[in-house]
């Protein structure tokens, strides 16, 4: 119904910045990481997922979306030959997230299976500087008067206000900092998949939920402005279109509408490739479209890799 990101922004008291933060851009542009050679491998990864992975003619989205994700993560993980600290990451699949907060006297809760979460031993350093954080004080959250901001949200009777991230923190879990969340929209039928706008809203809500739970675990349940902002990244895809997001939680004081806001950088609708032709298209005995991947955009993969490397490089 609504441009979901704007609604999510209000609910999480967040200011939106278009494009990726400069720290991530810096990783992308740094030639020392050898991102050029990985282009070839990324292209193979895409071809494998979209064309070669099955004994049938063409794999379906339910198959190629996770396979593409696994291939890209495999390439990123192989970088830990170069950066040994990358091995301090742990992938957790099917983890359940729960976080609760109050927003202008409305109790909100985020719960559910949030896809695949990557944890790391060390937290991501804050992306925005102190000045930028303070500058958000002046930013006014847009309201949707007369529409209540909780429209389209399910109202439930909550008996337990849960705050946990699906792992046992207290037991000395070494990989205690949520690093990146991955969302794969892999349903075959288009109506079962989230549209890009809704996917971005979902990513925002879950990133916020994870960050909030982590912040509450670190600093306690009292609402306050955080000294050390918690940064959580999020990547969502449907096998072709990628949405990148970096979320920084600056404050857990979410009841009021003023004060320091949280920040989110969104880079949306990045195509990794234009078309994957499984069988060559032939019109009147002439091959018009050869089989293969066309329109490969290496930049999208570079952003993926930069978000992966962010925090350890």
């Amino acid at each position: 119904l609504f441009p979901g990101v704007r609604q999510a922004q209000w609910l999480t008291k967040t200011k939106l910045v278009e494009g990726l933060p400069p720290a991530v851009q810096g990783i992308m542009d740094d030639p020392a990481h050898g991102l050029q050679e990985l282009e070839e491998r990324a292209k193979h990864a895409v071809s494998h997922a979209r064309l070669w992975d099955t004994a049938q003619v063409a794999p379906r989205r339910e198959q190629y979306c996770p396979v593409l994700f696994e291939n890209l993560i495999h390439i990123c993980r192989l970088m830990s030959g170069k950066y040994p600290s990358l091995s301090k990451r742990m992938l957790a699949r099917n983890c359940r997230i729960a976080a609760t907060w109050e927003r202008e006297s409305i109790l909100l809760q985020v719960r559910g299976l949030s896809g695949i979460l990557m944890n790391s031993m060390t937290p991501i350093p804050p992306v925005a500087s102190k000045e930028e954080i303070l500058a958000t004080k002046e930013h006014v959250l847009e309201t949707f008067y007369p529409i209540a901001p909780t429209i389209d949200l399910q109202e439930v009777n909550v008996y337990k206000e849960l705050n946990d991230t699906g792992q046992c923190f207290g037991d000395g879990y070494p990989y205690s900092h949520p690093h990146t969340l991955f969302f794969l929209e892999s349903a075959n039928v288009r109506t079962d998949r989230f549209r890009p706008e809704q996917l971005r809203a979902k990513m925002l809500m879950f990133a916020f939920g994870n960050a909030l739970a982590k912040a509450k675990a670190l600093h306690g349940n009292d609402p306050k402005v955080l000294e050390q902002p918690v940064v959580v990244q999020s990547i969502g895809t449907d096998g072709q279109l990628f949405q990148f997001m970096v979320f920084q939680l600056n404050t857990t004081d979410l009841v009021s509408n003023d004060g320091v806001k949280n920040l989110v950088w969104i880079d949306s609708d990045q195509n990794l490739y234009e078309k994957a032709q499984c069988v060559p298209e032939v019109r009147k005995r002439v091959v018009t479209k050869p089989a293969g991947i066309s329109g490969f955009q290496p930049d999208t993969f570079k952003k993926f890799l930069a978000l992966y490397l962010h925090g350890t490089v």
Partner: protein
Amino acid sequence: MAALGARRLLRPGRRWFSETVPAAPSPPAGPLYPPVVASVTAKSKAAKSRRLQRFNQRVHAAATVEEKLRLYGKLQRPKYAVYPQTFALNADRWYRSFTKTVLVPGMPPRAAAAKAPVAAAGTTPEAGGAPEPGAEAPGAAEAPEAAKAPEPAAGAAAYLDMGELRSIVCDALLQESFYQKKKRPFLYRDQDHTPGPFLTQLVSTLAAFLSGRNPLLAASSLDLNPEVNYYWHHGEEVVVHGHRKGRVDPVRFQIDDNPHLQIRVPKQLPEVVPLESDLGDVPVIDHKPSKLPLFKRQYENKVFIGSKVADPCCYGHTQFHLLPDKLKRERFIRERLEDQIEVVYRSNGIASLFAWTAAQAMYQGFWSEADVTRPFVSQAVVTDGKYFAFFCYQLNTLALTAETIKNNPRKNICWGTDSKPLYDVVEDGNVKGFNDEVLLQLVRFLLNRPTEL
């Protein structure tokens, strides 16, 4: 005289008794009639062999590998479906006879720059791969058995940090079994709950960690839950009933396997022993395959390594198999079949690896009439989450059909270990009784690479 007179009577232009040698023989020097061969359509043995020859020529002459595979598996007939993970008793003997494989217990001796012998403590193998002067390697091999094996290994290989590897493994184990909150496992799906994700985590992190050491891993492709299929003929039988009753048919087999994980690489692993080596005997079983029990079905004849022919990573490196709940150890112990536990691991290793290596060979254009010119080597790890068994397979021959096997002295070879536990128990966030040997073997597997790299 009479001849002269006769000549004058002839029409001009016709040189009947001409002295000149004809310029070219007007009939061709070859045979006057087409070759006399057996018919193609008759119901006779000669016709059948001619049809087979024509089929072989068609496959030989196929332009691309895809076309070859298509022709090879075009005719569908009932075939035995061979399952690598099976509860059949003594299945590994049967599988060895189907695939002409010799089972050699233990692991193959690593080349190790051909200098150092196989060290009991297992320190040498790293030295073979690590780019150090060969002098260190014999030194390390001698130093050995006072072996707090990890420490000398770390010293000699100078990079392999056992502590680091151990922590990676323990973290993966704890993450899956202890730290992450999961629901209770579904009925009879215990393997998908903990050991499955553990294996995935373990292999992906270990492969990434070791990719700095092994450039082949850095160019590898990891498949999750891939499909591996292979179709072949072996032996002959008489058709029992039906409209084709009484005809002599090859016995057809098909393996359809789903390893939990596999690593495919763009370059082939080096051969372990030369192509024509003979390391043992292939068991001969006088019964029909259906006595195993094995059942016939007719469906598509697939040959697939995990991805299509166009993929550059067309050689196999390592497969990881997870044994299902149906074949868990407790079940065998309860039914007093303890000796069959190892049989399960072995049959899985042999069948899966044969299918994989043979499919790789077919992707390179070899088939039963065009036998392999170089051996294809792949590795596999079969586990049920706690116990690990390691297998290495060298495919020396694809010629297993009744005609081609007659003069074929080559045999395929499979090296395999028994299953050993990786750890004893996981309690309270601690892994107790960790076994370094198993980890070392796993690492050695992952570090395996061609000698020129």
